[in-house]
């Protein structure tokens, strides 16, 4: 880190006058520099957010109450017609069912698997970094690639999974025909990419748990499993909430994987794996070219994410506080004592 002292004061706001040297003016400049700079530095984010974030969200509401075709552009004000039309579409309800089903099938096993993997990583392993990197590897594979790979693995006729099932004498599963089977296949893709990532997030939280708590648990006669449930889980519950919320937001927006699951990309012959985001895309950009209705879908999807996010939040809070309002406090006290011990050591 090089700390250079500039010979002359300089400013990024205006060229500083050199001759004659007016101390008063450069002081004024410097005061302005201090006052204005912070706002200048944070402005790129806010300007961009207002143009590409906030304004579009409000504008989505505006578009959703108008007739609005991709090519013709804005039409008449139609009130909530777009919304009622969306409600009348069978595909919309199918897409909701599929999204929720895929979300549940993916999120629940994913969070459980991630916590378990993290618990295994949270040991005094040899070659720690190797294992962490190994677990994270799928994260760098693009969802589109994952979709294509698993679309092939789960192929109905000659797919690897069905061949393996055949070895065990199980009849081939119609991964691209049966709704539930297709949801499982797509959930598998999501889990493939995100389980390791979430495991590392859990691992980070677990590493922050004071080791003394485990010692105390062992002295109290707790085995590995017991100390996992009584020490680890309560201690990382903030992270559990965080992961559940982020995977809810992500899970309800699934698009890439179902889009490439077959070559048509429309969500299956009878819309078995049409997700709401895919439905939004089909409504706006492929097939119907109806941006007004797409905007209505966007708002409905947002409300759904918000609702499920809140339910999740409430649930995880209740589970967390129900099991450990006492231990949480005790743990805090213990960790404080632990710090004190270390200080004196």
């Amino acid at each position: 880190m090089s700390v250079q002292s500039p010979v002359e004061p300089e400013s990024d706001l205006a060229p500083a006058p050199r001759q004659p040297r007016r101390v008063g003016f450069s002081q004024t400049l410097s005061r302005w520099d201090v006052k204005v700079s912070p706002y200048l530095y944070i402005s790129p984010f806010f300007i961009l957010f207002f143009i590409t974030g906030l304004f579009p969200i409000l504008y989505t509401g505006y578009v959703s109450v108008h007739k609005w075709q991709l090519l013709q552009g804005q039409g008449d004000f139609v009130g909530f017609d777009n919304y009622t039309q969306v409600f009348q579409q069978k595909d919309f309800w199918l897409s909701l069912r599929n999204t929720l089903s895929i979300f549940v099938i993916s999120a629940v096993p994913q969070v459980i698997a991630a916590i378990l993997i993290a618990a295994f990583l949270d040991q005094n392993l040899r070659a720690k970094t190797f294992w962490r990197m190994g677990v994270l590897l799928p994260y760098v594979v693009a969802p589109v690639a994952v979709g294509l790979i698993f679309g092939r693995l789960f192929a109905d006729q000659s797919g690897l999974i069905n061949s393996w099932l055949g070895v065990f004498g199980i009849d081939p599963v119609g991964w691209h025909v049966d709704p539930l089977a297709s949801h499982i296949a797509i959930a598998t893709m999501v889990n493939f990419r995100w389980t390791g990532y979430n495991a590392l997030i859990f691992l980070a939280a677990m590493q922050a748990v004071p080791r003394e708590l485990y010692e105390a648990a062992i002295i109290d006669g707790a085995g590995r499993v017991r100390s996992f449930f009584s020490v680890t889980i309560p201690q990382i519950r903030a992270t559990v909430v965080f992961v559940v919320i982020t995977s809810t937001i992500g899970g309800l927006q699934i698009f890439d994987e179902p889009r490439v699951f077959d070559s048509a990309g429309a969500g299956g012959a009878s819309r078995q794996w049409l997700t709401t985001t895919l439905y939004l895309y089909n409504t706006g950009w492929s097939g119907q070219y109806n941006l007004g209705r797409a905007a209505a879908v966007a708002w409905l999807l947002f409300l759904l994410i918000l609702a499920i996010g809140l339910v999740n939040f409430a649930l995880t809070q209740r589970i967390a506080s129900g099991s450990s309002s006492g231990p949480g406090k005790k743990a805090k006290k213990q960790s404080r004592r632990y710090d004190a011990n270390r200080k004196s050591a």
Partner: protein
Amino acid sequence: MNSIPAIEQIAGRGAARAAARRTNRRVGGYDRRPHWVSYVLLGIVVLIGILPIYYTLVIGSSDPVAIAQKALPQVFPDASLFDNFKRVIDADAFSFWKAVWNSVVIAVVVSASTVLFSTLAGFAFAKLRFPGRRGLLVFVIATMAIPTQLGVVPLYIIMTKLGWIGHLQAIIVPALVGAFGVFWMTQYLEEALPYELIEAARVDGASMFRTFWSIALPAARPAAAMLALFTFVAQWVNFFWPSIVLNSQNPTLPLAIRLLQQNYFVDYSLIMAGVFLMTLPLLVLFAFAGRQLVAGIMAGAVKG
């Protein structure tokens, strides 16, 4: 934790963390190596992560005619890998090199600008005192919860009016800086940049921007590297928004790979060779920088 900050100043955060771990181990008696079952189970997890990528290589290297005739999928890579690469590169549906170029331009420009603007904002939020600071920071964090899909329709309309549909700026401009980056750099600089350094620079007569450029930016380097990595990966794999604003004449790599799938006869050797080509740069990046990526996720989780 009295000895740890001292180590951190002398030998850096990594050494400090290692020291903390050693202390943990001594105090907690956690030195015992885990049971071999742990290695086996983790090995299976890693294997599950590698298998699909390996499978891509196997199919991508196979002869398209031969693979169609085999009942059970083959186990080892075949000889046609480079022939299939060549077919991807020469594909009629799109220009492969243009797709590569587009993906590289988008990922590099967005990563660079995200790091620069995020560090600027992070520096202001972490180290400068100004009215409204707390509230604005809370606002930034709150925006992270908004799903991207909500704004796609009007954003598309805006891009149409600007005449940017089919051009890279339609992807680059909205992604120039994001809430996550601002939050990430704020968190990091709050810890990593002592006020004394800033004051010293100010006393020496450095302007605010000069202070940022010579003091904050170098201090932010480790966090900036991670942010750049994450942004690069996110842009490289990005599909939803590009599939709306770009077209087959001017695709990114994920869009190009998708085009391979849309033939009447689905040629899996070709598709998987394309998938492998697209994934290869990130695998190479991961081999060199995976350690940082891991450290980044771990660090972000503790704070977030």
